[in-house]
């Protein structure tokens, strides 16, 4: 079974590298957020596979905690960028009033 875990973790690692590359070159901010979200999900899967590969089930708790943190982090960033357009409009209006 070792080689199956090994192959799966290699596939997940390659995907994580691809996600990081997309996050670095991604033309819009949302591409970067998407890449970060995907990286987080892959980290959860990777931790789960590694816990079986190394025979330490404690890693599953880390995976669960990471899933929670990742979700909240993505939402915080998205709320910030979603309201940015509205805030920019308001700022432009304030500038126009001066």
């Amino acid at each position, binding site marked *: 079974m070792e080689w199956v*875990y090994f192959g799966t973790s290699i596939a997940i690692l390659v995907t994580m590298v691809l996600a990081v590359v997309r996050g670095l070159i991604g033309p*819009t901010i*949302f591409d970067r957020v998407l890449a970060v979200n995907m990286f987080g*999900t892959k980290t959860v*899967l990777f931790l789960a596979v590694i816990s079986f590969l190394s025979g330490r089930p404690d890693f*599953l708790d880390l995976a669960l905690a990471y899933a929670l943190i990742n979700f909240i982090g993505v*939402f915080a960033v998205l709320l910030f960028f*979603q309201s940015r357009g509205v805030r920019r*409009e308001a700022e432009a209006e304030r500038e126009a009033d001066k």
Partner: protein
Amino acid sequence: MELLLDIASAVLLLTGGFFVFVGGFGVMRMPEFFTRMHAASLTDTGGAALILVGLMLQGGLTLVPLKLAAIFLFLFLTSPTASYALANAALLSGVKTACRNETGTQLPENKPVAAGSNLTTTPVSKVSASKTDTDKAVAKKTAKKAVARKPAKKAVKKTAKKAARKKS
């Protein structure tokens, strides 16, 4: 029985790894944002489900499959929510798509994202389906300002009239 479980979980894990890899490749190669989201959601559903179920089969009768089930449940609740929020935010801030409508003609506002621009922003008020509370608040503000400006203009006119009278 042991061998059967091993084979089943090996098949599930390797298929899951394949799905994850294909999704990552799609995120790298797809032409624009929404197609990239489609590729990423493939890894979130297919890849995650297959890998976690494959690991569950290997857990035996311990707490491990329960924890894996918790991770599974949590991922399947959160990843669609995150995808929805991401697509919504992208749509509201005017990320362009390269898709075509039913007749095959290109959508009129379809322009490639300008190179070097970090974020394409069209004003939120231009998106017809985005009459949010904040929009209404902005509209109210502008209305109030317009009301406040009118007396000022009248005052200016009055002073101008006075000045004209003085001159005459």
